[in-house]
């Protein structure tokens, strides 16, 4: 992360949700690296697991299998500031 910041670039670190027993180590690593933004994958399950993710004090994105407006809104309601998706019908969606 320091190398990225030294280049004046915003650092986004991905939190890959594999299984619960891996989460603590992943979050600890993220705390140490202190990214500018956290991206949770697969984002579609964020509403189910957000209670397990400690607040890291950085904005959170969510991506992966978010393909409906309802899923996008659920992810935002769970605390993400934005959705990353290749699903084009969602690109013009106003989530404000």
């Amino acid at each position, binding site marked *: 992360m320091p190398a990225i910041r030294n280049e004046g670039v915003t650092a986004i670190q991905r939190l890959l949700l594999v299984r619960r027993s891996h989460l603590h180590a992943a979050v600890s690593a993220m705390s140490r690296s202190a990214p500018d933004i956290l991206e949770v*994958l697969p984002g579609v399950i964020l509403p189910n697991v957000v209670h397990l993710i400690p607040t890291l004090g950085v904005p959170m994105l969510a991506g992966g*299998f978010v393909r409906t407006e309802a899923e996008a809104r659920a992810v935002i309601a769970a605390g993400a500031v934005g959705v990353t998706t*290749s699903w084009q019908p969602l690109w013009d969606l106003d989530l404000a």
Partner: protein
Amino acid sequence: MHNGRGLHLPKIYAAEGGRLYWEAPAGLDAGVLLRDTDLPTLIHRANVTGPELALDIDTVTGLGTDAAAVDFVVARLGIAVVLTRRPQLAALVAELGGLGLLQVLAFDSTGLNRALDGHPRRPGVGTAISPGLVLAHLHPAELAALPRPILAYGFVDTPEAARAILTTADSVVLRPEAASLMGAPVSLEPAGV
């Protein structure tokens, strides 16, 4: 369920490191998934009477992840259901008469398709999809592309979530305390083989 080769795949797996000695509630079609363990514990558990064992072979300290390790686990220890991230090892489990479950990490649709490109797609090799909770969000075509049997592995934390996931998966991994809460037999139609 049976995978068509005479192997039984329990509906429920309780995930533990081998020292908990989890016991299935009476009537529950359940086994134990050993993961994040070490070789002495694995050998000990394989010789203890209890629920059927499956093994996440990539997470055993002291055990290699090669053909010799698979042969040891399947042929010597008698563990018939083995999870691995390595397609060639999953295929080898099947060759030895076991059920190999290729662990597929499903973080997004592009990555899922890429991961499935390496699936052996042969009898005796199914799919362990992680996180299991994502199964509820896959499109029918994506579900159809997953070689069965399907094990849902990761972030399925409650009996309610497990029952929902079992409408698409053949088996689901739970933490032991959640698996114990399943209590009554899971009486769902098989999701297919």
